[in-house]
């Protein structure tokens, strides 16, 4: 089959079968043009890229040049991306086909995609339940077989939690392993682009294309690539897995599935004593950074403006109308934490406790190769079930610690509850060990090789 026909099939499938509200828009013309180009180059005998013809969906906070872009918000209505994110350029250079943009919590703030200005994304395993968030659209698109692979972003769990809820692989690389140029900044000391897929080989191939140093993101840095050239080999007693005792206060069913998935592994009980404060640290640090990053949405250079009497009231009205409830809430928390008189007690204090959390991980990794936890305390909840903001924040209790420490982590499907809901298992690796985790060791956990 030609690339053109294959991509046409995918486009038809998304149009007919996206009952999840996973996609906000399909890039039909862009995708068909690319497919046509691939067919022609193939005919001419040219060598095509490693991802030739593979359709990739991208979360709507990653820019794709010439395409509409919303970040799940009303405030960006009418915006057209003037450039592509580095990851998109790299994917297109590897001949992947960028097929559309996926739904998300507004500005990536949320754990259920219910904060999208364009309606919630539904879980393919149970349409009454959430897909998780904030990258819920990407997770549902992969889980519902609309695309084989999708990009998301993870600040406190926004890839791993929806991956767990939807029963797919969701990988958050080491902080700085992948360039964020062209990703809308939420909390810059935490944000990282990552990958959703069902097939671990495909996930690896996509990560292999998007990782790397980019002068446009000064936090991007080299990671360990030595495991790429080493063949996979089973080693007795390896890997040694640490299970932190602080991460087992989950639902009974999740715990049973988690323990069953780890049967036969070399397990050590460990303790990460400061991680109990991780959610509190996160909900100071992330909103603080967000309150600064989101100052740029003021209706001057882009987006929808609501005119006031003067410039200041124009800013306030534009932002008051354009931002949704959760975004306002977080900007307010951040503004408070950074305001004079509260900075030391909140922002600075949180950054100090963050150091203690990172040190807990550093100490634990002297004893074990990986730290493994349930990805979430419960399986996917019902749409509309959790309305209290703090209860929603606590959904990220197991994913936030690795984010604060900048560590790579992947959620893999561990099993299903008796109601047929997926449960995820999170594997946290040492900093910069992304290739070890993906190119070798994930097979220990998925049993693929």
């Amino acid at each position, binding site marked *: 089959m030609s690339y053109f026909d294959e991509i046409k099939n995918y486009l038809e499938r998304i149009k007919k079968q996206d009952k999840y509200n996973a996609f906000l828009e399909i890039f039909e013309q862009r995708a068909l043009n690319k497919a046509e180009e691939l067919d022609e180059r193939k005919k001419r005998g040219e060598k095509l890229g490693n991802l030739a013809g593979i359709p990739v969906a991208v979360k709507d906070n990653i820019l794709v040049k010439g395409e509409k872009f919303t970040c799940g918000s009303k405030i960006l209505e009418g915006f057209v991306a003037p450039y592509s994110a580095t990851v998109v350029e790299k994917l297109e250079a590897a001949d992947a086909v960028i097929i559309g943009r996926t739904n998300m919590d507004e500005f990536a703030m949320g754990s259920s995609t219910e904060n999208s200005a364009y309606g919630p994304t539904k879980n393919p395993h149970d349409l009454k339940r959430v897909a998780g968030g904030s990258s819920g659209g990407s997770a549902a698109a992969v889980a519902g077989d609309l695309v084989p692979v999708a990009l998301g972003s993870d600040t406190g769990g926004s890839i791993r939690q929806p991956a767990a809820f939807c029963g797919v692989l969701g990988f958050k690389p080491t902080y700085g392993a992948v360039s964020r140029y062209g990703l809308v900044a939420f909390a810059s000391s935490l944000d990282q682009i990552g990958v959703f897929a069902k097939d671990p080989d495909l996930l690896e191939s996509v990560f292999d294309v998007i990782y790397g140093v980019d002068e446009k993101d000064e*936090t991007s840095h080299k990671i360990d690539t030595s495991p790429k050239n080493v063949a996979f080999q089973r080693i007795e007693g390896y890997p040694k897995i640490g299970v932190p005792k602080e991460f087992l206060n989950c639902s009974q069913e999740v715990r049973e599935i988690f323990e069953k998935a780890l049967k036969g592994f070399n397990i050590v009980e460990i303790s990460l004593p400061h991680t109990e404060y991780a959610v509190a640290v996160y909900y*100071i640090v992330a909103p603080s950074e967000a309150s600064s990053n989101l100052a740029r949405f003021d209706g001057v250079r882009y987006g929808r403006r609501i005119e006031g009497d*003067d410039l200041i009231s124009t800013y*306030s009205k534009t*932002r008051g109308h354009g931002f949704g409830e959760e975004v306002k809430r977080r900007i*307010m928390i951040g503004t408070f934490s950074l305001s004079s008189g509260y900075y030391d007690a909140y922002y600075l204090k*949180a950054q*100090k406790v963050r150091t203690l959390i*990172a040190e807990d991980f550093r100490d634990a990794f002297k004893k074990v190769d990986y730290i493994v936890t349930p990805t979430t305390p419960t399986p996917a909840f019902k749409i509309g079930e959790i309305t209290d903001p703090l209860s929603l924040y606590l959904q990220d209790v197991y994913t936030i610690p690795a984010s604060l420490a900048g560590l790579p982590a992947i959620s893999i499907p561990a099993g299903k509850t008796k109601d047929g809901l997926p449960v995820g298992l999170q594997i946290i690796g040492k900093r910069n060990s992304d290739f070890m985790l993906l190119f070798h060791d994930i097979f220990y956990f998925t049993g693929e090789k």
Partner: protein
Amino acid sequence: MDKKVIDKKDVEYLGNLARISLSEDEKEKLYADLEKILGYVSQLEKVDTENVEPTYHVLPVKNVFRKDKVKESFSKEEILKNATERKGDFFKVPKII
């Protein structure tokens, strides 16, 4: 932890600092939410952080600069394309004073 961290007029003040106009209903709800959330995060008071350095970001890097070289960038047209209102080559805004 039972002490009040904010009161209602702080919400208005913060909204002003953040340049977000808020309806009376929103202020009420935000006040209740913020009180709860700030109450939760104030558990950090319990942690001994004497002699602990803050972690603003996890990488051991500082001041990464690019070479100071002139490079082609976006055209004015590309950048102004998304402007809400423009006048010639400028973004237009309502009166400032």
